[in-house]
């Protein structure tokens, strides 16, 4: 190894630093540190002349490490790294000492601040001496995409990327596209045709040259990592005799759009679903709407129709969460009942009316205007449905502890529509395992960050869209699907997948395969090689948090740019 030649630069930042910190004294002390070849002050290191000074010194004096004592590295670390690079020195041979935000601006006493600045500079000098040259790397990014689920979210994600030129494998378990939306007649709140919307998408998907549509198919296995997945897809044979087809395809990213399933209404016994013939679920009512058959099982037009919200949602017994779409759908039914059966009376039994989106409140108001009777019940205080007596002019009576009046009310009903909530699909855990992501307690897939990144997951290259992440209405599903598409497009556009130079590595000669670290990585970047009995970090997935590094009991994992040696040096430095 060549001799250390460290250049130390202390920025005055006008007077921002110099007013409090004695920059000359700091320089003087720095110049006596081991390996320091040059120590200089400058008025504004971040200015062009300041940067040029570093470049010139590197060229002239052969500096191989640089310490800049100035503002927060969050401000100008990239600036100075660029300067090093320009001078032909690895940009990671830079260390900054934050003597402005964490020194001159927060301390009044010049002597004390100067001592601290000296210590910080010493720490930086000792640390930089242990820096290693790092290079950003890149891995190939396969532009092709696997979409799991052919509902509205899946089709949307597929179409966006297919239009941009990627090859898409759209895998759908059923024999048709459309998912749950295919069961819907009209969409709230503008009562547009769901069928037209789907026909539009389906036609595009089927006809798109870049989309390979795999119906009756399931993904059996997914291997590899971001940019380089291999997916094994099994397609069921059309007729019983033929064998299932299994194909393996290479894809760079995966979008999981497996959607939801409806809550099983018979689980709530109060509603008599399955026993009372005219208690039906929202999807059964949709079918009536599609087929023009809004009538009771006896074939009569219902005079009284009741709609019960939050069936399986927002309660302690089943699901605590709100299913987000049922309120608007229920309001839609109020209108639709009135249209299909003029003169019918509609009661809408709800907890809170979630009419939050664009046009929703207006739609709610319109439902009121057509004299829908809204009755409020409290969470977990289920209405009870019973058969009416012979003298009553209705089939059923619903008893509600009505919150807005404080009365216990009996509502006549000939037909009751249960607004069944959304549930994670039964096999969510299998899907999660398949693509190496996780689900929350309700089985909804967990996004990488609810605000920073609601479409990505902690496994890089795997995205989630639509209701499999949490209950969602159509526009939100579409937006999320397109957001996933955008992220993938962005990566494809670059061709290669850039990997940050800073990540953690396992030294296989030290790893004992204890697997302490395996569960710690939120990004599932740590793989365990069962044959070698060693853990291994997929650098493309590593985000460099260092959790595994600290936890490795045998010191086999090193964090690039944050090695133990570097931090120990820093500790020694600041304590000097």
């Amino acid at each position: 190894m060549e001799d250390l030649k460290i250049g130390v630069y202390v920025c005055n930042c006008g007077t921002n630093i110099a007013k409090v910190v004695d920059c000359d004294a700091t320089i003087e002390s720095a110049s006596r540190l081991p390996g320091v070849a040059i120590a200089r002050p400058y008025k504004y290191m971040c200015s062009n002349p300041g940067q040029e000074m570093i470049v010139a010194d590197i060229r002239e004096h052969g500096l191989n490490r640089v310490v800049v004592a100035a503002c927060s590295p969050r401000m100008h670390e990239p600036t100075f790294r660029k300067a090093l690079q320009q001078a032909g020195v690895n940009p990671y041979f830079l260390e900054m000492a934050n003597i402005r935000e964490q020194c001159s601006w927060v301390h009044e006493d010049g002597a004390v601040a100067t001592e601290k600045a000296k210590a910080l500079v010493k720490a930086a000098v000792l640390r930089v001496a242990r820096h290693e040259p790092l290079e950003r790397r890149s891995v190939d990014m396969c532009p092709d995409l696997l979409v799991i689920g052919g509902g509205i979210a899946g089709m949307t994600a597929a179409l966006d990327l297919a239009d941009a030129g990627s090859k898409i494998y759209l895998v759908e378990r059923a024999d048709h596209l459309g998912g749950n939306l295919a069961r819907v007649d009209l969409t709230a709140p503008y009562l547009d045709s769901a069928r037209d919307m789907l026909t539009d998408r389906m036609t595009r998907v089927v006809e798109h040259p870049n989309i390979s549509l795999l119906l009756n198919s399931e993904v059996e296995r997914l291997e590899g990592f971001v940019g380089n997945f291999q997916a094994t897809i099994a397609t069921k044979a059309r007729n019983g005799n033929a064998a299932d087809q299994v194909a393996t395809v290479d894809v760079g990213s995966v979008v999981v759009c497996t959607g939801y399933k409806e809550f099983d209404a018979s689980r709530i016994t109060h509603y008599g679903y399955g026993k009372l013939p005219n208690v039906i679920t929202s999807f059964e009512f949709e079918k009536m709407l599609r087929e023009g058959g809004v009538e009771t099982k006896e074939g009569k037009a219902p005079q009284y129709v009741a709609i019960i919200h939050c069936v399986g949602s927002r309660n302690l017994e089943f699901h605590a969460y709100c299913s987000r779409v049922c309120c608007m759908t229920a309001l839609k039914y109020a209108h639709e009942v009135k249209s299909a059966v003029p003169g019918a009376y509609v009661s809408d039994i709800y907890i809170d009316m979630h009419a939050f989106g664009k046009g929703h409140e207006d739609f709610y108001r319109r439902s009121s205007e057509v004299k829908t009777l809204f009755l409020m019940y409290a969470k977990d205080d289920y209405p009870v449905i019973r058969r009416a007596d012979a003298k009553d002019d209705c089939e059923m009576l619903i008893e509600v502890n009505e919150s807005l009046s404080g009365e216990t009310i009996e509502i006549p009903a000939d037909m009751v529509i249960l607004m069944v909530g959304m549930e994670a699909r039964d096999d969510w855990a299998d899907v999660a395992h398949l693509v190496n992501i996780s689900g929350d307690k309700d089985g909804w897939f967990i996004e990488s960050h609810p605000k920073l990144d609601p479409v990505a997951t902690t496994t890089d290259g795997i995205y989630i869209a639509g209701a499999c992440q949490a209950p969602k209405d159509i526009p939100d599903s579409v937006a999320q699907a397109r957001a996933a598409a955008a992220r993938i497009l962005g990566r494809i556009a670059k061709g290669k997948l850039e990997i940050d130079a800073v990540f953690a590595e396992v030294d296989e000669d030290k790893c004992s395969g204890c697997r302490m670290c395996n569960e710690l990585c939120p990004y599932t970047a740590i793989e365990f090689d069962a044959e070698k009995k060693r853990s291994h970090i997929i650098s493309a997935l590593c985000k460099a948090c260092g959790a595994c590094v600290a936890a490795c009991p045998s010191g086999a994992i090193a964090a690039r740019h944050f090695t133990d040696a570097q931090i120990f040096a820093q500790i020694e430095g600041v304590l000097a």
Partner: protein
Amino acid sequence: MTFEPKIVGFLCNWCSYTGADLAGTSRIHYAANVRIIRVMCSARIDPTFVLKALHDGADGVLICGCHPGDCHYSEGNYKMMRRYPLLKALLADYGIEKDRVRLEWVSASEGQRFADIVNDMTERVRALGPSSIKTALATDMAER
């Protein structure tokens, strides 16, 4: 002359270091006793660092991370949260006063809080007096 303790601060890059920067940009004055070492996440803070700092003569060690739930890496700070009680127990067994090592959650908007913590910690450590570890170990070696 009053005793000026030397405290090593390990701060996570995303919340606490940013919070400390905010204290700076907001010109909040606080004690100069904490010298900050930046790590990407509080999960990177190996208990060895704390022992090493004490061994090397630190009078106190301050660890700061994002508030629980706020971690840039989802759950890194929980790892620190789990290590801390065990580390405290270990330090107690080694006879280290409990105020010498402290874990705090500081968000990127809590410049004032950071300053308050530093001041408070400085005062507490000052009250404890200098850490004897480094000198004691040196004495151990010199005269038995």
